[in-house]
């Protein structure tokens, strides 16, 4: 249905960019020949570790009795906080998280230490036999309770513009509302894993399934009391990341390294899926309260919004996540008079972390909820109210953080989707149908996305790459980005192939490795291709430039006259194959490799006032979703989805469509079936796929159409493209708004409070509340 029109073989003619090349590892993946960390042949003497978990949400840790575990078959010993040679705290930015719980446990599932044994099952079995003496303390488990108690991991942040009190007081209409939105488990199919190998002279080789090898390197070195150059971190690919392996992979790698150091043996730590759920952080659950004033058209004249992020027991990335939520409260809409108060709440659960969208979804959903409520309050079509609030081109075009929106395509994009999806006709049809249907009610919604691209921490927006041309003309690329399935490596191979004018298959990628490109930022914030693609392009360009100069000298022309295309190189006088040129150049001692470095221009941002231009550009999109609900049970189904999304000029349409579809379905899961349930003791009761339900094949609507917006990125970005990793996730807010539309049809009144996820139970509750 959304299959790109042409399937191109690996030997397709140039240019490589713009073509739907299969994923560079596809053939290996389908044959079971793609290697993940747990598949690496184990070095002789490898031991296996398993975590010892706190069984109390909050308490004083009085003692650890490993006697029974140590007596078990195959067990070599335990690793506890006392075994850490370096800093007992992880080298996180806020520096507030112990590597192993020491005198206090702060969530149920917190790692107190490890059991190390000859086999993984021996280690896991023994870890359960370690007895913890914990004196329980009162635990804060609810985010609203945390606000009440002022239990915070970081101080609250307020962003204010204009006079929201006046905007509300003088408005012809006012509304208040509240909402609770649940978190989300990443459920990367490959669980967290690291394999730590001792090298000579107290150096370490860490295989880690991580989005951020540089940070793993830094954390491991810090914990071992070593310098960064003593630790090499390598990752060929992850079996999924989604933000869950941005910081969380670091913990696992540090633990494995500490065990390897204590026993002077290679140690692998692969978390069992249930332990992975219990230990690692998730998408932040949020709670909201708002008060808004608006005019007869539904245009917001004043908004006061409280967002409380449930951060769990430590800061981790909660500061930037909550910041990005604040930055995305506006989504596509101008908020002239606004006050946003953001609480970063400390609770005694897992430390919530990065997850695709990184707070953006949690910011946007509040405003989308408000606009849906305003429309129903006024008896208007929610799409009209949304359109009335969109950013303008010449005016109403400055965000609440003082960035001018220069690349706004919201109105034409939404209007085209509205027409293509026959929104108005369908809304009328649905209303007629609902009037006759006693049990099933249908709903429809269009919601837009405007997502800011760049790390909000400006210094992260830099990247490096290496391009090596070997004497036979084959090319190897290495860069600081990591592959988690998003197709980053494939796109970079395409970019480099085009830069050198060689076929796609001439270029290979090598594993991400801190000893090749240092100090790389996390592959996150949708920035992988923007940053690393440009760095790789620059590296290739330098090699090409040297070769062009070499040819120009021989052919007595200018370097610009030398053309690299189709695996051939031509000057005014002669044409030669790429391989011939490379061989000649090597023998003439031309440097056939280069580095490349890129930093994003134009961006700046004051983290104290939360103002500036944190984003290089915005990625846009909109989705039209139709759903049905069962008013007897609350069960619901997504029936039809039409998406129009902006990826600029696509480097690889198949990969971009894959990101859009995958992001949308993942977002749909967040808002429908994926429910994290902690019981009153702080125990995460949904800790496996038997109880935590991500979408399955049957949840994909048969009508699921994706179209790409046909314009290039107006900013100078690699190949005219735009980032695509995160923005489509938020298109799924249309699912939740359509469900609220259906619920409103059933209730026949304006107010619909439907907490997310919209499980059958929550939908039924929304019908009655």
């Amino acid at each position, binding site marked *: 249905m959304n299959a790109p029109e042409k399937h191109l073989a690996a030997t397709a003619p140039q240019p490589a960019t713009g073509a739907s090349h299969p994923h560079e590892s*596809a053939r290996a993946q389908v044959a079971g020949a793609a290697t993940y960390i747990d598949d690496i042949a184990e070095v002789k003497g490898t031991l296996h570790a398993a975590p010892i978990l706190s069984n109390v949400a909050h308490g004083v840790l009085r003692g650890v009795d490993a006697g029974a575990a140590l007596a078990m078959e195959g067990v070599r010993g335990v690793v506890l906080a006392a075994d850490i040679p370096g800093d007992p705290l992880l080298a996180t930015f806020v520096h507030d998280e112990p590597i192993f719980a020491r005198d206090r446990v702060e969530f149920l599932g917190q790692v107190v230490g490890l059991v190390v044994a000859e086999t993984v099952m021996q280690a896991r079995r023994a870890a359960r036999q370690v007895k913890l003496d914990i004196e329980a303390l009162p635990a804060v488990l609810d985010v609203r309770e945390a606000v009440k108690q002022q239990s915070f991991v970081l101080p609250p942040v307020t962003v204010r513009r204009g006079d929201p009190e006046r905007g509300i007081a003088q408005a012809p209409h006012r509304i208040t509302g509240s909402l609770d939105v649940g978190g989300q488990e990443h459920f990367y199919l490959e669980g967290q894993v690291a394999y730590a190998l001792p090298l000579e002279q107290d150096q370490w080789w860490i295989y880690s399934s991580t989005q951020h090898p540089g940070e793993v390197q830094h954390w491991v070195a810090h914990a071992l009391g070593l310098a960064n150059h003593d630790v090499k971190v390598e990752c060929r690919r992850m079996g999924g990341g989604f933000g869950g392996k941005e910081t969380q992979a670091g913990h696992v790698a540090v633990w494995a390294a500490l065990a390897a150091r204590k026993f002077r043996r290679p140690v692998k730590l692969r978390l069992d899926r249930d332990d992975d759920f219990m230990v690692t952080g998730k998408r932040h659950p949020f709670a909201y309260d708002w008060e808004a004033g608006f005019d007869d058209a539904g245009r917001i004249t004043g908004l006061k919004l409280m967002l409380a992020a449930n951060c769990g027991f430590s800061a981790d990335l909660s500061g930037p996540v909550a910041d990005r939520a604040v930055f995305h409260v506006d989504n596509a809409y101008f908020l002239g008079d606004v006050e946003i108060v953001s609480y970063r709440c400390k609770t005694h659960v897992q430390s919530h972390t990065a997850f695709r969208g990184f707070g953006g979804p949690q910011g946007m959903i509040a405003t989308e909820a408000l606009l849906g409520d305003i429309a129903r309050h006024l008896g208007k079509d929610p799409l009209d109210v949304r359109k009335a609030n969109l950013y303008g081109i010449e005016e109403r075009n400055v965000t609440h953080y003082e960035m001018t929106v220069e690349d706004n395509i919201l109105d034409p994009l939404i209007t085209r989707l509205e027409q293509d999806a026959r929104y108005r006709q369908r809304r009328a049809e649905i209303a007629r149908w609902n009037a006759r249907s006693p049990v099933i009610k249908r709903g429809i919604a269009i919601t837009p996305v405007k997502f800011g691209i760049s790390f909000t921490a400006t210094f992260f927006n830099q990247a490096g790459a290496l391009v090596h041309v070997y004497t036979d003309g084959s090319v190897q690329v290495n860069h600081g980005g990591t592959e988690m399935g998003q197709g980053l490596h494939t796109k970079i191979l395409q970019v480099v192939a085009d830069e050198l004018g060689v076929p796609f298959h001439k270029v290979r990628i090598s594993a991400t490795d801190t000893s090749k490109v240092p100090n790389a930022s996390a592959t996150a914030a949708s920035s992988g291709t923007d940053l690393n693609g440009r760095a790789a392009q620059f590296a290739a360009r330098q090699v090409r430039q040297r070769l062009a100069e070499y040819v120009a000298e021989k052919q007595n022309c200018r370097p610009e006259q030398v053309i690299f295309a189709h695996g051939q190189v031509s000057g005014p006088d002669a044409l030669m194959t790429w391989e011939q040129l490379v061989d000649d150049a090597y023998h003439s001692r031309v440097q056939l490799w280069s580095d490349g470095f890129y930093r994003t221009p134009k961006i700046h941002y004051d983290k104290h006032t939360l103002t500036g231009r944190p984003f290089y550009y915005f990625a846009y999109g909109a989705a039209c979703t139709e759903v049905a609900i069962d008013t007897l049970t609350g069960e619901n189904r997504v029936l039809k989805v039409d998406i129009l999304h902006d990826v600029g000029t696509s480097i690889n349409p198949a990969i971009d469509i894959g990101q859009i579809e995958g992001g949308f379905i993942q977002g749909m899961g967040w808002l429908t079936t994926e429910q994290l349930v902690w019981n009153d003791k702080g125990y995460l009761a949904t800790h496996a796929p038997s109880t935590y339900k991500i979408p399955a094949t049957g949840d994909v609507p048969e009508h699921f159409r994706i179209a790409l917006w046909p314009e290039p990125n107006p900013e100078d970005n690699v190949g005219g493209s735009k980032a695509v990793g995160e923005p489509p996730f938020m298109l799924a807010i249309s699912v939740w708004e359509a469900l609220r539309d259906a619920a409103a049809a059933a209730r026949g009144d304006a107010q619909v409070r439907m907490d997310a996820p919209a499980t059958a139970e929550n939908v039924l509750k929304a019908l009655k509340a």
Partner: protein
Amino acid sequence: MESRTIRFVRRGELVSLSNVPPDRTLLEVLREDLACTGTKEGCGEGDCGACTVVLGEARDGGLQYRAINSCIRLAHSIDGLALWTVEDLAGADGSLHPAQEAMVQCHGSQCGFCTPGFVMSLFGMYQNHVARGEPVTRELAQEELSGNLCRCTGYRPILDAAQQMAELPRTSVDEAAIVCQLAALARERDAAAGPYLAPRSLPELLALRAAQPDAQVVAGCTDVGLWVTKMHRQFGRVLDVSRVEELRRVERHDGHVAIGAAVTLTEAFEALVGDRPHLKTFASRFAGLPVRNSGTLGGNVANGSPIGDSMPLLIALGARIVLASVRGERELPLEQFYTGYRKNVLAADEVVARIRVPHPVPGEFLRAYKISKRFDDDISAVCLAVNLRIEDGVVAHAGIGAGGVAATPVRALQAEAALRGRPWTAVAAQAAAAALRSEFQPISDMRASAAYRSEVLGNLLQRYWLESQGLQHVNLESFRIEEALAP
């Protein structure tokens, strides 16, 4: 004690493995003992499908192919079978199997970790449908892939691949050669006793059960497998009933169908759907295909989980359970089998032999409803099966089974009593709904609150009433926009 040697056919060759402990999983054997790491562990509990492999068994002169979860399957259980993993499909020259080629062409792999499992489910589909000249519809693909989770793609390209593979040049398995090898394996089977007992006949099973009452009885191992991987249980001795010929039969008798306890859920549901075609969707929502291919109806019933989905249906149908031991057989209504949470009347020397399910009778109106967070491959928050026989407008017979509302699967005796002999009217349905709500005191857990369960239990009876009156589009299970909009 020495374990029996495990022997199976892979890549056309005989593989023999000695000294494999009885509780070692097939996935551990593949990844750790055979260093075949193409097959992945995603969850270790049969819920994600990353570990899917295909088993081939000689049946009726041919090969029967079944995609199963290797993470919760005991390695010994594949003795005498043929095995395919993701590493076994490509040609010697590296040419990909259509299931693999289609996944590449349709961009069906992103991170690639679920891919080996999808490829094997596709291979199972290929052998069971494409190779037999049957089309792969999107509906079939969705149903047969519902036990495989992908977090990257959103599934559309994988569903495309399922259909695309049928368009590629055919590849075939040399079935005759494998059947021949399996026959030789069966003849030369190592009959020595050991810690893993897999009898082939009922008398043999009953004798072993009597002699080894402490042996852990397993069938498809789709629940017991989790006791190994998640609860870290170790079994000194395992008694596997899944190869007992008498327990693998589906026999049609006058008045009822007898489903052997070791009949897989896939085949058991085929038998039930054969009698009552409208149960097809309910059947396909029971776990995912790899679990239905391994798990057995007898295992689901004997395990007795209060949220097992087959029991409410069987109770509503008036099914009876037959228990066997060296002392003979006894039979009782299914609901009387259970005595408490995961407790039953089974004696130490007994096994479940078969389940007898009455055929439909004229006037019967049966519906089975399942409420879960996810439509496919989920566990019920509430399951309700209602089977009324209306004669002259009066409820002549009422059978109502419920799951998720008590410590065991239960028969709704009060609701049945409220209906029996009364005219079938909206008022009667409301009375029965009220009886249902007051009859059970469900608990709150991660699947649903007690209040929701109670409320929905009654609402489902309301849905049943509406369906019994011929109302269309009152159930999302069968909802299609196009049909709903048809004049």
